[in-house]
């Protein structure tokens, strides 16, 4: 039953992404740089590292389901976040087996996964005509600020989340 905590936390992350953006001061919220909270991905990276070792498809399913919920709540186009988040959690699974698990390595995994996620999002959205950002500008204005903000976030939740996931794993 302890595993039910993970989707509940993900639901909170989903709800707070929008609230956090609204609470940012307008000078940051409407500056040229784009800061996008990708907290669901950050938490799922930790989940793939410390939980579900022998059941790797479950975090991917979480990624797809909560991606679809992001689509429903925050964008009016379904499927985009679902595919992008599912794919990036899958990439996290692949990388997990190559690296050791400590904070630095997790940050590296988070960087790569975030890059996959953001690139897929920008590619699909520009294909659909929603974004008109050229790739060079995407890297400077969108990826870098988002990356810094989310690395900060994953460092913040690393120790609490690690303890929580260890507690969840004790008894299945």
């Amino acid at each position: 039953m302890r595993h039910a905590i993970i989707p509940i936390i993900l639901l909170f992350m989903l709800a707070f992404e929008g609230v956090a953006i609204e609470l940012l001061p307008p000078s940051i919220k409407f500056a040229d740089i784009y800061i996008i909270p990708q907290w669901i991905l950050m938490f799922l990276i930790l989940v793939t590292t410390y939980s579900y070792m022998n059941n790797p498809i479950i975090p991917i399913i979480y990624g797809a389901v909560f991606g679809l919920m992001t689509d429903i709540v925050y964008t009016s186009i379904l499927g985009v976040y679902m595919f992008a988040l599912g794919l990036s959690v899958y990439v996290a699974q692949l990388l997990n087996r190559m690296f050791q698990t400590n904070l630095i390595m997790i940050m590296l995994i988070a960087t790569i996964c975030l890059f996959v996620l953001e690139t897929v999002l920008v590619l699909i959205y520009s294909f659909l005509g929603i974004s008109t950002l050229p790739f060079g500008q995407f890297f400077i204005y969108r990826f870098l600020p988002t990356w810094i903000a989310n690395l900060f976030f994953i460092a913040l939740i690393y120790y609490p989340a690690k303890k929580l996931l260890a507690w969840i794993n004790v008894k299945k």
Partner: protein
Amino acid sequence: MSFFKRKSLFVILIGIILLVSLVGYSFTKKDDLSTAEKFILDSVGWLQNITFQPITFVTNFFGNIDDIKQTYEENKILRNKLVEYKTLVYEVQELKKENESLRQIIDLIDSPRDYDAILATVIARSPERWFEQIIINQGSLHGIEKNMAVITGEGLIGQVSSVSNLTSTVQLISNFDQLNRISAYVPRSKGDNVFGLVEGYDHKREMLIFRIIDESGAKVKEDEIVVSSSLGGYFPSGLMIGTIKEVTPDQYGLTKIAYVEPAANLKEINEVIVVNRKLDVISDEQEIGESEDIEEIDENERIEQEGENE
């Protein structure tokens, strides 16, 4: 771990197929949200609502401390304004009474200007910046319907794009495209109003694009205001949209385009008013009926005028 070797490609392919079909679905659907979507929006909105209230309480508290410092200066100015205001209120009341009695004489109760206001608080904003949407804490249970206009005290900010039971999503005017044009006009005191359509948003200039469709040749100048017209079908008449900053011919030189600076501050939106116009929203069938009525009235007027002339 056979999953990663054999099945992974298969799963990714299924993912792409799902992606394409879901994107297609969301581009084609025009009607209301499905039950599952409403359920998710409601539960997430409920979470956002209960967390947003205490946080704004704290941030407002610090904002209030800043305000107190400026209070004395503002008080002086406001006291002077208050004197002017009192006479104005009296005048407005008199005019309202007169207006109502005149309306009763001609059996016209709901004017296109009248609306019911539903107050709402912004609880979240789409983290994806390309979708300029905000989520407000009032939904269909509170009487909000799709396509209603949303304003702040300063002017129009957007339109309700989808409604669930407890929350609704508002599309800001800075995200408007060809699909949601607003019928608007430049009010003139002499009655030669200039009509047009607000067609979209120029992100570089941060201004709305107002296409003038009036053929009377009336010239629009800078600093004139643009307000909404009830002819679009969903909005009441007279909602402030913005002021004209620049007038240029369009790319074919046939019509003119005015760039309109939005009156409302689109960046800092906390409290909004959802506008439910009292005049019935016009569906296609009603439109035909009403235009017949208008023709009848026109005819009556003509007969009367002819009678007077004789």
